[in-house]
């Protein structure tokens, strides 16, 4: 293995870029959402190998050169959907186990492919959708750094468990990220279609209040403003093999992060 010490037969690197994740995820997200149900395995397959190396999830300069266009340009749909899909891509990157890498310009949704002879298009930040993506990246970084559940076990299978990876029909993914203590828990739910889902039930391991920490569909980021009003109380209705469940509104083309809070504040 690449990212293992040489004394156990590895090549001695600390981390390795997960090119498979990059290819699968960009390929999946560049598809019109109507077809995504047929490619659900592209977005779930990574967990078969996610801990075989110490991975970095790269959205590097290599993906925005040689006619490949920008990250925003790869996203399908009208302008609103492209921005929503890009926020979903970035949110999904931060939700997945692994370290993160983003090439400059991606953090504010550069439209053009990278041109080494020119500056990034900083003037785009005057437009709210671009400023919204930048704010989203800023909030993702702060969430990722402040929540132990999102980074402690980046390279350890203890940090991840599926809630439901089988809802291909609605292109919804739900999974838990776990820190070292049992109460360091983040639930991630991704809706890869532009159809908002109401009363979508997701199983959770613990009863109590689940705070909606980030929602990529918030107006602040340029989203439509669907959400769960800051949090949801778990009900003792077993679901997805878990003793409790949350009754959720899933915003269109969006990812939401819920933090386990225990008793309601």
């Amino acid at each position, binding site marked *: 293995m*690449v*990212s293992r010490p040489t004394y156990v037969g590895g*090549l*001695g*690197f*600390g*981390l*390795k*870029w997960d*090119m498979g994740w990059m290819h699968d995820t960009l390929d999946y997200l560049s598809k019109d959402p109507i077809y995504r149900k047929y490619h659900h395995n592209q977005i779930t397959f990574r967990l078969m190998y996610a801990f075989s190396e*110490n991975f*970095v999830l*790269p959205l*590097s*300069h*290599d993906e925005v050169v040689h006619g490949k266009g920008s990250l925003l340009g790869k996203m399908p749909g009208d302008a609103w959907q492209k921005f929503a899909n890009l926020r979903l891509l970035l949110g999904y990157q*931060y939700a997945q186990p692994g*370290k*993160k*890498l*983003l*090439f*400059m310009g991606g*953090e504010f949704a550069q439209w053009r492919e*990278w*041109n*080494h*002879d*020119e*500056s*990034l298009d*900083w003037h785009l930040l005057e437009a709210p959708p671009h400023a919204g993506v*930048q704010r989203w*990246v*800023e909030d*993702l*970084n*702060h969430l*990722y*750094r402040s929540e132990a559940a*999102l*980074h*402690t*076990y*980046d*390279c*350890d299978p203890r940090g991840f468990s599926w809630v439901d990876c089988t809802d291909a029909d609605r292109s919804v993914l739900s999974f838990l990220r776990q820190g070292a203590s049992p109460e360091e828990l983040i639930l991630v739910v991704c809706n890869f279609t532009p159809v908002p889902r109401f009363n979508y039930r997701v199983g959770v391991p613990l009863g109590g209040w689940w705070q909606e920490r980030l929602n990529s569909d918030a107006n602040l980021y340029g989203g439509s403003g669907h959400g769960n009003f800051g949090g949801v109380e778990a009900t003792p209705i077993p679901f997805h093999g878990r003793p409790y469940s949350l009754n959720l509104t899933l915003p269109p083309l969006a990812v939401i992060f819920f933090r386990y809070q225990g008793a309601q504040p």
Partner: protein
Amino acid sequence: MKTSVSTVTLLSADDLYLFNEGSHFRLYEKLGAHPLSVGGTAGTYFAVWAPNAEQVSVIGDFNGWDKKAHPLFPRESSGIWEGFLPGVGPGAVYKYHIVSRYQGYRVDKADPLGFYHETPPRTASVVWDLDYSWGDQEWMASRGARHTLSAPMAIYEVHLGSWRRVPEAGNRPLTYREMASWLPEYVQRLGFTHVEFLPVMEHPFYGSWGYQTTGYFAPTSRYGTPQDFMYLVDTLHQHGIGVILDWVPSHFPNDEHGLGFFDGTHLYEHADPRKGIHPDWNSFIFNYGRNEVCSFLISSALFWLDKYHVDGLRVDAVASMLYLDYSRREGRVDPQRLRRPREPRGHRLPAPL
């Protein structure tokens, strides 16, 4: 003008042994150009590896590029040529003039261990010292804990030449020092933990983004001096941001002043073109089977960690180093050592913790 002196050396017998054995990892303390004072005389000590040379001399602005003025002297059987040039100091522009043992081949080379080079399209090296007063002690003391696998790591990948430009000045890129007044605050506000620079090592062709390296021991002079780049790293560290450098030990470009055909033989690159020339990039491939080449590359990696306080290296094109049939059509590989290519790129050496 005084001629070169043969009695000054930085090389001990151990240095030579380790270098020829491939386990000298701090060549930058010995080879290249080192300003120093001998018996009250200021000058510069030069040392370069050219085992198949008949003659080596230092040419530069200080001797009118005269090939006869400052010869170097072979050091035993090590393949290294060395000498002390009185009166030559920091800022002097120089190259090595190499006369090969073979076929009368002569060539002027930049210093493989040069700490600073002229700005492309100029190709000579510049004598330089690397003194710098660091202010990042707090970062250096705490970075071990920041680089465990359980710590968060969100990397912002940056190309220095195109992050931000100055429209009022012909759309020029920012200097290292200008970058230091913009980038750390921006990265800190956005919350990334690390910056990763596309290769900063000196490269003749801007359009290669740095992936065609000629100066494995020098940040490109397009944006400032070595100390200016240290200042950028220092400032990032003082903002709590780690620094990773993209580094390219897989291949190097065939520019005449570069490493290729260094002493009239295939010295750094493999002599067999099936192993020594990269089919995708038409560049030379290092001969990893040669001990001195391993010393050179490992010294380069450690140089950035040691002298520039860098926190990690991202090693480019590792698969092309591991698999002999990488990008080779059938029949264009050495079948004795065939392995299958898999993952194409993207690894990193562990940071020194």
